């Protein structure tokens, strides 16, 4: 069996090769991406000559948040993909202009790769799915359905508008919030009770709690739950396994519009509910960096800010400082590259409310 060190080295070689392929493609005058071709005009070098490995991406500088908000979206479509059907997916964007990302097949590839990590007993091939979560401009709208179809199932959908939920909560409209939540849960219950072929569920932590208040998911035939969302953390993972759905396979997952879909280190039945994600290398890679000196990668176990690089032929985002922080996690056999534990909103971005406490 190959040693972990060798596998780490192989993963790195694969990553460097992907960097070369992706840079060659996006900066290619015929097939490349208008945004990156314009960007290359300001450089005093040709990225295709100088960027030969992941480390060399530094030469491009840091990717700026505003580029994904203000650049006309067609400038992100590689010319080599002209004429292909394009989807646009947006990030959170509860206020202001959200970041947009174009997608052709990436989401399908991401979810097909993720599908390989699911166990066929809990997520049986041919079983139908219910997706109760954010749809609309988000990737999940198409991605969960594709996952279900890829596994031979049909996906039933109940849509949620998280931007409206955020508005209700911020405005203190708690009754309306409960009304909206109940509206979503009621729709989910109807589908779960009506369509006996549904055995797999995708939902968010909050909605899972709300659904489990009304129904025992095992009783209606759910075998596997794929769950993701900002409230996912070690405590929720444990709460789900111990109390909410103890007899159902529970797979916590992190994805974001820019990166794709991460895989989480499988739970080992050892009481360690820490959630550690590993990016889908070589399609995306995390570095966990010192927030004050982003050129320094923090040590294993140390807290840092996530810097994401996405490397696909559809979409190239080098060295983007995410709004998340976490602890740098070690490579292991299944994912022989760095991951991140306890992912959460970057502390300095958390709203600090200075108010009296009467």
């Amino acid at each position, binding site marked *: 069996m190959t040693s972990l060190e060798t596998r780490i080295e192989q993963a790195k070689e694969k990553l460097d090769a992907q960097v070369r392929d992706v840079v060659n493609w996006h900066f290619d005058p015929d097939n490349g991406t208008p945004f990156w071709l314009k960007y290359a005009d300001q450089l005093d070098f040709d990225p295709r000559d100088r960027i030969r490995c992941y480390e060399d991406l530094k030469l491009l500088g840091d990717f700026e948040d505003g580029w994904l908000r203000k650049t006309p979206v067609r400038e992100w479509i590689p010319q080599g993909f002209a004429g292909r059907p394009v989807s646009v997916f947006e990030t959170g964007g509860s206020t202001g202009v959200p970041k947009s990302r174009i997608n052709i097949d990436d989401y399908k590839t991401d979810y097909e790769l993720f599908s390989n990590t699911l166990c066929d007993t809990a997520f049986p091939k041919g079983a139908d799915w219910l997706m109760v979560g954010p749809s609309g401009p988000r990737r999940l709208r198409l991605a969960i359905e594709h996952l279900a179809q890829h596994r031979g199932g049909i996906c039933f959908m109940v849509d949620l508008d998280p931007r409206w939920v955020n508005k209700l909560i911020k405005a203190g409209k708690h009754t309306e919030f409960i009304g909206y939540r109940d509206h979503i849960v009621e729709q989910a219950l109807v589908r779960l009770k009506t369509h006996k072929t549904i055995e797999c569920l995708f939902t968010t932590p909050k909605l899972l709690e709300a659904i489990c208040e009304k129904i025992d998911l095992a009783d209606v035939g759910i075998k596997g739950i794929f769950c993701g969302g900002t*409230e996912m953390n070690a405590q929720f993972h444990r*709460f789900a396994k111990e109390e909410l759905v103890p007899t159902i396979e529970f797979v916590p997952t992190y994805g974001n519009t820019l990166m794709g879909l991460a895989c989480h280190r499988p739970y080992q039945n050892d009481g360690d509910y820490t959630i550690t994600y590993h990016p889908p290398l070589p399609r995306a890679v995390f570095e966990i960096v010192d927030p004050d000196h982003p050129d320094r990668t923090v040590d294993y176990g140390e807290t840092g800010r996530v810097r994401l690089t996405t490397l696909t032929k559809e979409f190239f985002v080098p060295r983007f400082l995410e709004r998340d922080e976490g602890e740098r996690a070690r490579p292991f056999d299944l994912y022989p590259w760095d991951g991140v534990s306890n992912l959460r909103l970057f502390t300095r971005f958390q709203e600090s409310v200075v108010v009296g406490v009467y």
Partner: protein
Amino acid sequence: MLHIPVLRAGRAYRSLNTQTLTDIRGGAPVAVVSQANSGLIARDLNQTAAYQRSLAEIPAQKLYDMSAKAADLFLNATLPVDPIDGVLQSREDFITCQSATTGLPKNMCAANMEKVATALRMTKTIVDGLSRGVDQDRLNREYRREADALGAILPSNSPGVHALWVPTPAMRVPVMVRPGSQEPWTPMRIIQAMIAAGYPAEAFGFYPSDHAGANEILMRCDRALFFGDARTVDAWRGTGRIQIHGPGWSKMLLGPDAMANFQDHLDVLVQAISANGGRSCVNTSAVWAPPGSRALAEALAERLAAIEAKGLDDPNARLAGFTNRRLAHLLDERIDAQLAQGGAEDLTAKYRKGPRLVEIDNTLFLQPTLIWCDHEHPLAGAEYLFPFAAFVEMPAEDMPRRLGPTLTLSLISEQEDLINAMLDSPHVDRINIGSLPTNTVRWDHPHEGNLFELLYKRRAVQFAAG
């Protein structure tokens, strides 16, 4: 390190989400506090009918006796604080921890313990006072219970406020508390004392959590107390099921007849503004007196300025330290900015030694401040977490119509028309007539609402004759 757990129906539960409480004097960790996720709270609160049944059959007198016993235990016993590791906390440890994380001087921590113990000891008097003597063992013949549990979103500013909710289990209603983030100490100790005194553990939920957890309690308990700043509590006003405890805007008013011997009222005014470090909602934030009161204002400023910041362990400390250093700076700067607008004067400035904001023993304090301004000035309606008040000259006849929301009003006057006008005011919650400071509180009186009337509603019950 000490780990304060969640209590689920009295059972300790350690969450994987924790927050570390630190000593405000240097950041040394004091304890980690388990944080309940909102789904866990929701799951527990679906069981409140069962929790309530644990109290239902206990005779009222036995409940009062258990509360009285809990008073002594709360004051002096060594009680569990970290039941999973079997860690106990003595009275002295309690005071040390509470002072370190809340900035209250130790002598005030001890004084606030007395307030809570008094409420526990007087539970029968309080229940009788609030219910006007209804027979608690035949309550369902006249009243309907409105909730299976009382939610309580509690503050960190002053431990004395816990006196408000401690009679609840004796009214046969379980309590589900969300402690203030800096002050888990008092509610945990009250609960442990009550359980040790014989109350069923199921009657208590203790859920340190974020805002989402607090909202879960407010949404799921049919009745709740909510302590919070103006902005937070406003979203929950008007539901009829949540008793709001927001800013107090408590006031001391002097009638023209009180001015002849104003020196006699100085002690009362100083106490009203500065007792408990000025942290309570019943502390005075405005003093109104008729035109020609400058001499009183100056004398009051001089007395307030004599209260100096001291270390939290000093037995003579009368000011509380700020747990949030940024807030201390922000308030100081805000007051200066509002003074700079003109039309207001910091009367205490010339009597005070040093600036308003001082640092002692690694702790930031804002020293007492009395502002001379007119009623329209923004500082006239301000309320801050330290001994701060605006002194406003106002003709007595204008006072009633300008009153606005007032938790506690003390009127020093024997002028009948003024007394009647204040008694008729729709704005005042508690009213004291005569030379009484606003922080004179009797727990058997309603306070921002009547706890018994929140929990029970009068109804008709009829039996057919024969």
